[in-house]
């Protein structure tokens, strides 16, 4: 099965971020394809490398980055949602005159068209949210 994943909630605040990760990992291990993971609403906070959780807790951001690297995943952070919430890559930093960037490894910032395209091209779009 060719899946696309949408993550609508931020890490730690809401279990949707964990469930999305666990579903993605399980699907990949079962041999399914994950054609894109799209982070929207507060879900964009899954993609900031400034996260520093306590050492005895899971590191949700690093966990995504590692899974992304292992399976060469397309992990897309919505640009409009990211701009509101302060998730910035090199291009956004320059475009908006910011003095820092914080996009985590394996994530990229792009537009909502990527979500629509995922809905069209996947066999199942699975939404994780509240």
């Amino acid at each position, binding site marked *: 099965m060719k899946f696309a994943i*949408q993550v609508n909630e931020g890490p730690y605040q809401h279990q949707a971020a964990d469930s999305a990760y666990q579903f993605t990992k399980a699907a990949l291990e079962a041999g399914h394809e994950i054609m894109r993971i799209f982070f929207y*609403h507060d879900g964009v906070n899954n993609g900031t490398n400034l996260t520093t959780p306590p050492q005895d807790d899971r590191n949700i951001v690093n966990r995504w980055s590692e899974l992304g690297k292992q399976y060469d995943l397309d992990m897309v952070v919505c640009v409009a949602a990211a701009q509101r919430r302060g998730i910035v890559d090199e291009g956004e930093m320059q475009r908006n005159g910011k003095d820092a960037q914080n996009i985590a490894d394996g994530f990229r910032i792009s537009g*909502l068209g990527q979500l*629509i*395209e995922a809905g*069209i091209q996947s066999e199942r*779009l699975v939404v994780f949210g509240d």
Partner: protein
Amino acid sequence: MSEQIKKFMYINRRAPYGTIYAWESLEVVLIGAAFDQDVSLAFMDDGVFQLVKGQDTADVEMKNFSPTYKALGDYDVTKLYVEKESLEERGLTLEDLMPLTYEDEDDDWAEKDSIRLVSRAEMADIMDEQDVFFSF
């Protein structure tokens, strides 16, 4: 832009203010309209409040985005299903909602209502026909 046409349904279950879901959902609808899919919107639970007319957000200092719904017809988003039971449970009727219309190009551009009042059972049938759900 895309090789196949799917039936997309956007499910709106939340009040327009209080959280950003409704506004960011509408942003997806507007972007998605460029992809020429068969689009429907569903309004149920507190989502029916999104369509209430006369919204005034001045005192809470939030952007009143309700006029944007009136532009949906121009984007060929013409099927807005509103669940009757959700309206009734909140003491609302069709008269409390914004008049939303579109011009039907297949009917000499006649102006028609975009809002379609459906029962919970009818909504279930409509959902059964869809290919993709965006749930907000």
